[in-house]
């Protein structure tokens, strides 16, 4: 039997990798990918807790998180396309003016 802590540690490691990617990368698509990595880190911990606490609320919560992640990806990628059409770049350092 695997202890609950191992799953929680894995979830923390995955979350922090995603956070590092979000903070340090300059490419917007990679930043969106990092957000997905963070979502997945949280999902691992929720599923593990749902299994070890014998309560299905965790799995339902993961279901909602996946739904929100899909919505977020759709909106985010539409914004990326809009940005690229106007600015010809998706590097965040080059997007330094408020007036589009």
């Amino acid at each position: 039997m695997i202890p609950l802590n191992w799953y929680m540690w894995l979830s923390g490691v995955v979350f922090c990798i995603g956070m590092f990617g979000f903070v340090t990368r300059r490419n917007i698509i990679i930043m969106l990918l990092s957000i997905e990595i963070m979502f997945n880190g949280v999902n691992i911990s929720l599923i593990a807790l749902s299994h070890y606490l014998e309560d299905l609320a965790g799995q339902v919560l993961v279901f909602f998180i996946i739904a929100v992640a899909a919505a977020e990806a759709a909106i985010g990628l539409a914004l990326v396309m809009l940005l690229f059409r106007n600015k010809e770049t998706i590097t965040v350092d080059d997007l330094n003016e408020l007036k589009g």
Partner: protein
Amino acid sequence: MINQIFFFYFSAVIVAMSVMAITRRQVLHGVLYMLLMFFHIAGLYLFLNAEFISAVQIIVYAGAIMVLFLFVIMLLNLREDIRKKQFIAVWPMGLLVSSGILMVVLMSMLTVRTGTKGVWGIAQIERVTETVAVGTVLYMQYLFPFEVASLVLLVAIIGAIVLAKRKVK
């Protein structure tokens, strides 16, 4: 024993693939590494008796969201963007902050105490099968959030179309 071998395999691949995904210069390669990582996370869910979520992970994440990413990457012309520097100038600071938060998370797990157990033990889930159990909880206790989630998806569909549509001159 075999459980632990599989756990170590899955967690090692998940961590390695997520590191690879955020450090690739080519965005497309990053997305493909993410795809591999999603499959391994789905495998990990199978060990936790979450067959329904495991299938949803593969169908929605790997099948829908990553394909959306791939489509957008192929629609954009990123030849000039991928030649630029990948990381911000002060990336060691980001490494410091995220590893600090990682330390806090790892240490806090040492003293974690779980609460009282719920009613959906393995025996109970086996009796009614997993999808029925998840559906029961979803439609009985979480019906209102479920409807709100459908509204969120509707807003996302409309918003994505409105944003990505070309302006008619």
